[in-house]
């Protein structure tokens, strides 16, 4: 999947061409490498809105310009904008002075989370990630040999909860609970306590409304794979998969942090 990309000369040119100012947004509107699926485009724009990189009320570049900057067809872009309209993030006005405008009324809690993420340095995020790797990876390995059938069932129901979670709060809770229950299934009070602390510390940042560092469906698929490894009693696979998804989430969070830092400067 195309991710918020590196700061290349191409992306800078794309920004200049569409006339969007702001140090951070050149990353947001960098061309999408894979030809651009609708979800990817929608996700990138909604992340930028969620992180506050595009402010409430701000006008997006014209469809043609935006499609060109992102290197997707106007059809794809229109579908993406339509998704964003459905989610209430974008409003399209017709006629003179019309266009697509960002609608992102920000509540205090989201503003607080952005501030926390901006002020938490890359080193600190990496430290949290390292700690998560140690705790979550080991818990997954141990759970593969110690989880009982009803614990596996409980974990499966938490994945279903995540798959069905509509609000970001529900997603954060179902995702966090999944990791905590794995540590409990590992029969370790110490790992469980640490997992609770870590989820409390990182969970809100991973699931900032519309600036989610985690894609729900991707996360669900990953959880199912981890759970299958645990049910198979394959500790090495459970650990490996868990480590991969911790690393991915942390690297996205670092990317978001960097964007917020650039935006501020």
């Amino acid at each position, binding site marked *: 999947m195309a991710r918020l990309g590196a700061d290349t000369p191409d992306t800078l040119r794309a920004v200049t061409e569409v006339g969007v100012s702001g140090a951070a947004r050149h990353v947001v509107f960098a061309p999408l490498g894979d030809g651009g699926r609708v979800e990817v485009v929608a996700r990138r724009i909604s992340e930028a809105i969620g992180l506050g990189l595009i402010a409430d009320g701000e006008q997006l570049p014209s469809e043609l310009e935006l499609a060109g900057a992102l290197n997707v067809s106007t059809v794809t872009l229109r579908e993406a904008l339509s998704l964003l309209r459905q989610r209430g993030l974008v409003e399209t006005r017709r006629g003179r002075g019309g266009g697509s405008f960002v609608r992102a009324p920000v509540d205090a809690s989201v503003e607080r989370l952005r501030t926390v993420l901006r002020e938490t340095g890359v080193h600190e995020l990496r430290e949290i990630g390292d700690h998560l790797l140690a705790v979550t990876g080991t818990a997954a390995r141990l759970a593969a*040999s*110690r989880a*009982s*059938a*009803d614990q596996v069932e*409980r974990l499966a129901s938490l994945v279903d909860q995540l798959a069905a979670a509509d609000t970001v*709060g529900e997603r*954060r*809770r179902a995702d*966090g*609970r999944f990791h*905590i229950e794995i*540590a*409990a299934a590992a*029969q*370790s*009070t110490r790992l*469980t*306590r640490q997992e*609770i602390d870590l*989820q*409390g510390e990182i*969970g809100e940042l991973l699931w900032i409304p519309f600036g989610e560092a985690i894609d729900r469906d991707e996360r669900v698929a990953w959880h199912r794979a981890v759970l299958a490894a645990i049910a198979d009693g394959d500790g090495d696979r459970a650990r490996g998969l868990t480590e991969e998804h911790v690393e991915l989430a942390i690297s996205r969070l670092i990317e978001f942090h960097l964007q917020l830092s650039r935006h501020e400067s």
Partner: protein
Amino acid sequence: MTPSAGVAATRVDALLRDTFTGIETLRSLAIDVHRGALGAGRAPTTGDLSAIRPTVLAHLSAQARLAGTGVIAAPGVLADQPRWLEWWRRPPGGGSAPLPLTVDLDTGNIGSYDYPLAPWFDVPYRTGRRVVVGPYVDYAGTDEYILTFAAPISSDAGFFGVAAADIRAGDVERAMLPTLDSEGPATALVNATGRVLASNTPTMIVGSMTHSGSGTRQELPPGAEWADCVGLPWFLVRGQC
């Protein structure tokens, strides 16, 4: 059954009997609280339920093995709190006086104590049967590695919650070790799901799962009075050494 397995069965039976006797007392007190309030035409409150507190504290001081005991109200049963535990515990390490268990009951929080989902609550609620659960990590609750023994509190007034008691896994282990040693080397006491409760060997440690292939497995048949109790029988597993 070998005579010594009979000793193990007797010890397990005594553990169950001691624990559930106290639970039964709390259960009937809670039913009185429930009926009393409904009889007065109102829902019971946390204040009403605190009438059981002297008995809870008496149980904790009389039975050194208990880590905690009390009554957990079903969501929505009490008038003044959506969820509630009248639960007291002996702090780990001992020495100090019993403390009330304070937990986060706000279901919006990641570390909240979502007890209606816990097997020790859910099984009595759904089946009306008693249950023995564990050892398990009681996260967001006591945060300890424990066994929980629980019974439903049901009467003509309806379902009120459960009466329960906790014993720390470490205390079960200490209590059972002499019996396990008398069984010979590499012997483990295992719960109904195959999880080791206590053992005298590092090859089968507490919390690990034993599988049907690992050593010989002997049921500790519970007496007829435990027929309704979910989570039994326990087993003795003798490994190869």
